[in-house]
């Protein structure tokens, strides 16, 4: 019986934080108000499937495959609005309030004129087991939740490299056309 209790406690101790890494990114009604929406939901099985289609002879794709190996999920919700103030700023706190005590703020950028970015990581020892990025502008609200062991330096090098097109204001505007 004692052994059973120990095993159960250990299992819960491992399982609860692991499951708590994924945050709720359900924002009812927000997509209806947005002009442009990016909604990415990739669980572990979808990531494994994607990994099969990344790689081959392309070193860039192999690098991305390496980056996503070990991840349990990637979730993105990005909303762009036609005018300012279309989203409730309390959504930022709603996302943050879901993060447990192992989550630490890595970078916080606050700007009156540019984008505000909060990067928080689920730090367990030397490892980062999850990442949440909240980026806001008057007309944009973006949340990224990466569940699993992620290399942030490698992630930051992705933009404009590895066949991932770099986003500039111009290309965004072209996308609207």
């Amino acid at each position, binding site marked *: 019986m004692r052994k059973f209790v120990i095993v159960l406690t250990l299992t819960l101790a491992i399982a609860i934080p692991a499951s708590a890494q994924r945050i709720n990114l359900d924002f009812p009604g927000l997509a209806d108000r947005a002009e442009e929406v990016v909604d990415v939901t990739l669980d572990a099985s979808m990531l494994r499937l994607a990994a099969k*289609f990344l790689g081959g002879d392309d070193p860039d794709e192999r690098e991305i495959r390496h980056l996503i190996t070990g991840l349990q999920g990637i979730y993105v919700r990005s909303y762009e609005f036609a005018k300012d103030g279309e989203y409730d700023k309390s959504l930022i706190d709603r996302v943050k309030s879901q993060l447990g005590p192992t989550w630490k703020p890595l970078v916080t950028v606050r700007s009156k004129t540019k984008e505000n970015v909060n990067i928080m990581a689920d730090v367990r020892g030397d490892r980062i087991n999850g990442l949440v990025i909240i980026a806001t502008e008057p007309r944009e609200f*973006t949340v990224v939740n990466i569940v699993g062991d992620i290399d942030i330096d490698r992630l930051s090098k992705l933009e404009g490299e590895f066949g991932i097109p770099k986003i500039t204001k111009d290309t965004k505007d072209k996308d609207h056309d």
Partner: protein
Amino acid sequence: MNLEDDLRRALRRESPAPGFASRVLQRIETDQAPKRRPSWRAVAASLTLTALIGGGVAYEHHVREGERAKEQVLTALRIAGEKVRYAQSEVRTIGSQD
């Protein structure tokens, strides 16, 4: 009067053509004869074809799903990478001003 004649002509009894009865009997016998069963080769061929078509459709679906997942990964990492880089550049800018 003409109408009566016409009706009488139309409804008058006529004998069937010679051999009509035997042709009917022959037709009945043909219809009642046991139908030919499809050979096992035909069954095997149709099963194989069905399996191939089913497999092809499933594989195509798998490839489509995989490509879609790959595109989603690239989109997600592009957005995440962009935000991280922006934050890093802001931190560097502030650091260089100090």
